């Protein structure tokens, strides 16, 4: 079987999606390409299926919160989501990054390209509060279903939740949404 020669991911993306690329950065030999969120599905499909690129393995999706946020060219919005993809054939990694707005963070899901993104996206929905448009299962993953807010955001303070005992259960239940909404 003949293996297609490796293509430069940056160059081929620039040729194929010239308007979708927002920012390019290399830090410690890791290439990051910031793209428009609405093009993410097409870009991922392209990177996975094009001979010479074949990023066939989704390693990780991780999110980051740039609170307090001042827009810049590198970080146009508050929430960043990094897709770490890997090509087994050419043994190289690539980071594709998108940004989501503070008011309504929504990004299209890439579940149709990488099924393994299922729980990774649900985790980000749960902890960072970024919704993935088109995800089939939008329940919380790690936190309890009655949890308020998204704990991985930078404006959520650390800790300070009281441990529930029988002597303080009334106090705590007062602040839980399911207890107050039923009355």
């Amino acid at each position: 079987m003949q293996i297609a020669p490796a293509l430069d991911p940056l160059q081929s993306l620039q040729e194929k999606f010239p308007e979708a690329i927002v920012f390019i950065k290399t830090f410690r030999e890791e290439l990051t390409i910031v793209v428009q969120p609405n093009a993410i599905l097409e870009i991922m499909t392209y990177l996975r299926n094009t001979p010479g690129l074949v990023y066939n393995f989704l390693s990780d999706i991780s999110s980051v919160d740039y609170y307090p946020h001042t827009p810049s060219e590198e970080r146009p919005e508050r929430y960043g989501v990094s897709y770490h993809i890997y090509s087994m054939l050419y043994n190289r990694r690539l980071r594709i990054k998108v940004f989501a707005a503070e008011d309504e963070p929504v990004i299209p899901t890439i579940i149709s390209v990488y099924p393994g993104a299922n729980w990774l996206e649900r985790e980000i929905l749960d902890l960072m509060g970024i919704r993935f448009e088109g995800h089939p299962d939008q329940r919380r993953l790690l936190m309890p279903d009655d949890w308020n807010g998204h704990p991985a955001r930078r404006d959520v303070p650390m800790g300070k939740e009281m441990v529930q005992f029988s002597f303080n259960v009334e106090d705590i239940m007062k602040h839980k949404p399911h207890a107050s909404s039923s009355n």
Partner: protein
Amino acid sequence: MATPPPANATKALWEGSLEELRGLVSNRAMTGETMLLNMGPHHPSTHGVLRLLLELDGEEIVTCLPDIGYLHTGIEKNIEDKSYEKAVPLTDRMDYLSPMSNNMAFCMAVEKLVALDVPERAQIIRVICLELSRIASHMVWLGTHALDMGAMSVFLYCFREREFILRIFEMLSGQRMMGSYIRPGGLWRDVPAEFYGAVNQFLEYFQPKIDDYESILTNNPIWLDRTQGVGVIEPDVALAWGMTGAVLRGSGVNWDIRKAMPYSGYETYDFEVPLGEHGDVYDRFYVRIQELRQSVKILQQAMKKLPKKGPFRSSNRKFVPPPRSELGSSMEAVIHHFKLWTQGFDAPDEEVYVSIESPRGEMACYLHGTGGQKPRRVHFKTPSFMHISSLPVVSEGYLIADMIAIIGSVDIVLGDCDR
């Protein structure tokens, strides 16, 4: 006497209704044609607090909904409030069967973020620690996996061997499990003199033991009946669902990060990557058994290479505390010591991604600095998380008893999954 909780509080708690599961289970469950059954979270063979909602047609699994989060301890969030050096003990508590791999992933991310060097001797000791914890972790896996399938004696043998390794870890760090021995820039302290003898003695003792396990299990007809042709994962399914480690290699995909992207000097060791053919429970078992042999091989080479004297951590004083002996004579050392233990060091406002081959698969750390002493965001991509997310695909169509074999063979750790 304790006051009972108010009536409205308990009444309003989730009581469960089928409607909430519409779309997640098949429509046959809605009419009662198939049965919904909870497995866990306190079931011993789910290997931790994992709840599986199984939809059963007779004894056959139609679909399964894994429910995780019982062990979510917010480690990623907690690290955001700690300096880089002080965050290391938290990483121990994720994958509690191989704490050294977690230390390693986090420390490598920190080292990459601040461009910190690690001396060669420290790298060799790290490899020894990682391979020892791989053996220790595989021992727990083999013991519990065999116990689930009814082979009690293997469990006792495996824990006996693991005890040896835990004693070596106690010798190194003072702790049997959560040692936090690997630190940014190297190691916490040098290895004690008895370490060399202990590891060599263990290797001599352990090698014939692998043959013992094989003589009990590999050709055992009951074991073959329970494992062959069960939980088959096709290579393309394994890749699509992000499976790594022995699960991926059991399906025949040759990807080991120690070979593909060597770290800590793995490229200088001579070892093979064992592969399976069919991707069933038996192949994953066999791959891990062969991995034990390869780990022993790596350990033997590392012990031969390890010099008796030399630096065990970086001499870059901006990131690594000075040795205790310098504090009495050098003012500069006192300043560095004080600065590092009160504030920590600064790391740039950038992101790095580092992955290592943990006993379970690809363990990766995404680290984003703030420019100050604390990270902005840490995210661990853990192998168990990906493996549990793919359980519905793997288990579909098998019997409920096979579920036990499948969970055992993908080797999940819930602390690793929930973080």
